[in-house]
């Protein structure tokens, strides 16, 4: 079974530039999560999708971050414009079932973003 795929693995941009990350969850997984992990901290949930609908985006900085999962499969996360404090690893995870705490989350390798 293929795992959660993310690209790119690394990205370096200057502040005020835009960047987009892509995630393809495990086939058949209904729920998809985007996390931000700043160095020295645990993952922080940015947004959670169930199929193509948003379950929780309460911690997404909506003035600069956006995410979509149009067909209920893969997803993109965009930052526009980026700030220095956006430097972090962006993790994508998916679960088989509906948005529920008891489903094991399967993580991708992450995208390491550096904003200069």
């Amino acid at each position: 079974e293929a795992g959660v795929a993310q690209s790119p693995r690394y990205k370096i941009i200057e502040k005020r530039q835009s960047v987009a990350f892509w995630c393809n969850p495990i086939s058949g997984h209904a729920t998809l999560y985007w996390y931000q992990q700043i160095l020295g901290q645990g993952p922080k949930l940015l947004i959670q999708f169930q199929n193509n609908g948003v379950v929780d985006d309460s911690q997404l900085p909506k003035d600069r971050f956006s995410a979509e999962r149009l067909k209920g499969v893969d997803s993109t996360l965009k930052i526009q414009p980026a700030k220095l404090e956006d430097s972090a690893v962006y993790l994508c995870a998916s679960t088989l079932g509906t948005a529920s705490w008891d489903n094991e989350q399967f993580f991708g390798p992450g995208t390491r973003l550096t904003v200069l």
Partner: protein
Amino acid sequence: AQSVSQHNHHVILSEAASLELGCNYSYGGTVNLFWYVQYPGQHLQLLLKYFSGDPLVKGIKGFEAEFIKSKFSFNLRKPSVQWSDTAEYFCAVNADSNYQLIWGAGTKLFIKP
């Protein structure tokens, strides 16, 4: 606000030593508890979880964790570590069965061969 504390950011042990990594959470209601692990160069993966029942939970690779409700703790243990246990370990808590996991900052474990 709910929070999860992992007291040790870095732990260094020799092979065959016993391991205990601390995890405390701040929430008085019903909690569901998880330990995830990230081996060097690999993805985060589930190590073990507690939902209800026996507070001593056994996970993969010989790890176990004990839920002590009175202490708001869910410490991870292993009687005898191996070099291959070198990894970063994260504790995560879900409160009242809502959608979110709240994560600790992680503990980096290094096992000296």
